[in-house]
């Protein structure tokens, strides 16, 4: 053996970087676990002294409070974990709707900044500057005051077609459940499949030949047509549960409470201003030569936007857009300030009733952590698809 490899360094001296690194890490671990032990020890000691019980067993006890609104029926006799579940669904409901609406509005505003009309540009700019420089909590409170004090009472509710808007919230007609609706769902399934197959074919055709086919509208049309066909096959039920003005309030139909509307509007309008900036930044990050090259090839403005600018802008847009979605979800926790029963609000009530601060706050944090991680994963997956594959 006459290899020239130097002997392996295994020297345990202060000069060895690896050894010092090991020592630093040991010190860090000791310090952190010391702090954690100190806090945990104090907490247990304090709980013992004050007679606070701990543990998650309270989740099975009866909650004993009513919840203003929930997606499914809940009464005060049910267990705490059911109440928490109602809170989570309420949070997700407002967050998902808010994300969809804010994306649409924000994209329009962001693209509007490149309009050739100075009024549109100015309007979009002032919207963005106005809404993102005022705390979202303040905006929620303002919307809540407007919805509950400025709007008329149920007796003189504003009426647009079958919709009623009043201090009691927004009332709208809902279709009466019958087998026809089930048939619409049956129609939806093959529609989704057909739409997806068509879209895949269109994308492949585009990649093979460059022939542009409708990749969004036509598949959507297929899905809608299929479910309409299912609905027609099921006997085309047209019965609606319409709201009407009762003596004291609007009765029947579906209803959105003012709390829900205030949270939704506040979060949507606030986040849309940030999304508008993200979209604007994404579009302006595409090199100017790309647009010029597109017009040199004879593409019109619409084609230029769709085929050249947007695919490149998306790469820049998606990561900050993910952040905005996460922010919206986290900001939905402010609903507690105006009494919308989201998960923070339910946890707050449970905390006040049972005194188990550690458990309730950890549950809230866990819910948000899972939601955040889930959104991140989903958006990262989408990002890896939208990213331009560089050779």
């Amino acid at each position, binding site marked *: 053996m006459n290899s020239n490899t130097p002997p392996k360094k295994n020297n345990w001296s202060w000069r060895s970087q690896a050894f010092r690194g090991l020592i630093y890490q040991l010190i860090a671990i000791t310090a952190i676990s010391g702090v954690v032990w100190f806090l945990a020890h104090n*907490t247990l000691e304090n709980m013992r002294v004050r007679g606070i019980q701990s543990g998650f067993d309270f989740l099975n006890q009866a909650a004993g409070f009513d919840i203003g609104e929930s997606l499914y029926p809940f009464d005060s006799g049910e267990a705490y974990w059911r109440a928490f579940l109602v809170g989570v669904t309420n949070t997700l409901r407002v967050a998902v709707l808010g994300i969809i609406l804010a994306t649409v509005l924000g994209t329009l505003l962001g693209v509007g900044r490149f309009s050739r009309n100075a009024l549109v540009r100015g309007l979009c700019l002032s919207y963005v500057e106005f809404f993102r420089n005022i705390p979202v909590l303040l905006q929620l409170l303002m919307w809540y005051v407007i919805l509950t004090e400025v709007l008329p009472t149920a007796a003189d509710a504003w009426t647009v077609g079958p919709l009623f808007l009043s201090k009691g919230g927004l009332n709208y007609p809902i279709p009466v459940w019958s087998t026809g609706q089930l048939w619409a769902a049956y129609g939806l399934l093959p529609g989704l499949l057909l739409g997806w197959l068509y879209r895949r074919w269109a994308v492949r055709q585009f990649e093979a030949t460059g022939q542009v086919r409708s990749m969004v509208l036509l598949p959507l049309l297929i899905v809608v047509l299929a479910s309409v066909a299912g609905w027609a096959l099921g006997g085309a039920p047209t019965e609606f549960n319409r709201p009407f003005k009762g003596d004291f309030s609007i009765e029947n139909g579906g209803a959105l409470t003012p709390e829900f509307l205030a949270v939704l509007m506040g979060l949507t309008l606030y986040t849309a201003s940030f999304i508008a900036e993200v979209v604007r930044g994404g579009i302006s990050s595409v090199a100017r030569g790309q647009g010029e090259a597109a017009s040199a090839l004879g593409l019109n403005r619409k084609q230029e936007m769709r085929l050249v600018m947007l695919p490149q802008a998306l790469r820049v847009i998606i990561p900050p857009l993910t952040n905005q979605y996460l922010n919206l979800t986290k900001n939905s926790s402010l609903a507690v300030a105006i009494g919308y029963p989201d998960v923070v609000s339910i946890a707050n009530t449970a905390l006040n009733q049972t005194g188990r601060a550690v458990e309730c706050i950890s549950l809230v944090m866990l819910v948000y952590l899972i939601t955040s991680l889930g959104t991140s994963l989903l958006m990262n997956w989408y990002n890896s698809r939208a990213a331009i594959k560089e050779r």
Partner: protein
Amino acid sequence: MNTTTFQPIAPRPAPVNTEGPVAWVKANLLADWKTSLATLVIGGVLLWLVPQILNWAIVKAVWAANYDACRADGAGACWGVITEKYRIIIFGRYPFEEQWRPLVATLLLTGLLVASCMRMFWRAWLPLLWLVVLAVFFALMYGNTLGLSKVETDRWGGLPLTILLASLSLVMSFPLALLIALGRRSNLPAIRSFCTIYVELIRGVPLISVLFMASFMFPLFMPPGVNIDVLVRVLVGITLFAAAYSAEVIRGGLQAVPKGQVEAAATLGLSYWQTQRKIVLPQALAMVVPGIMNNFISTFKDTSLVTIVSLYELTGAMSLALNSDANWRPFTIEGYIFIALIYFVFCFSMSRYSHWVETQVNKSKLR
């Protein structure tokens, strides 16, 4: 021999004017039928809406502190509520006669914030000045010295509290964020994973849950018998929260420093800390100033959340001022508009500043 007489061709028309207001209107408002239609529609809506808003906010508004006049039919905005309550809205529950103290303290702190934004004050003595001003701020607000009466922190409120929470959490979170950002890029796995877990954990939860933790769980964390003021607990909560976000911004700056810089430093024989202090951080921090500024703006807005754990900063003081007085309670909207304007002025000027810094930083790159 043929003679040809010179025949000039017809002169070309003068070029279309592209300067001046007329040309601007033609290009930006009436370019083609779509643009013209948009101008017509938006202009029409604005012409209909703006006079109504002006009418409500200025022409028919009631400025005197008279709630009967505000309730009269056809009265517009009731700014009288501001004339009546502005001291409570701005200074919260601070004793009325002593309110010059928060005023002076706030002016001092705001002045220092503005000064810190200017290049000519970026000197070694600036941190020292910060310490002095913060000491003066606390002395003025808390009193109990120099013949000033003592004012407990639970009576602090309004704009001074907002500015204090925002600036103090920024100042305290910065060194922490720096260490965490360096830790996330460290070669030592234990330190790196701890920093990563910290940042992702904090960024995954809303501030309100951290504030709840600060107000309900911190008392349990402390050894029995130790009571920590609620203001300090909330301040610690906001600082820990802001540090995670600042750390990500700083990490972005660290990543943007070319690897060759670190390698060059290693060739020169600099140690880790020497490399960071003399080579990496000066370049990275210059790049992250706009990002830090944006974080500061969002922290400034986020301070409004402490009203949920019952500290009366600007938003809380506003609700306090109006909810305790049935005469003025119907005019909450005007109160909200007033504090929204205060927030707007602060945040908008800071975002302009951040924009200016960004162009300054980019200028050095364009050279």
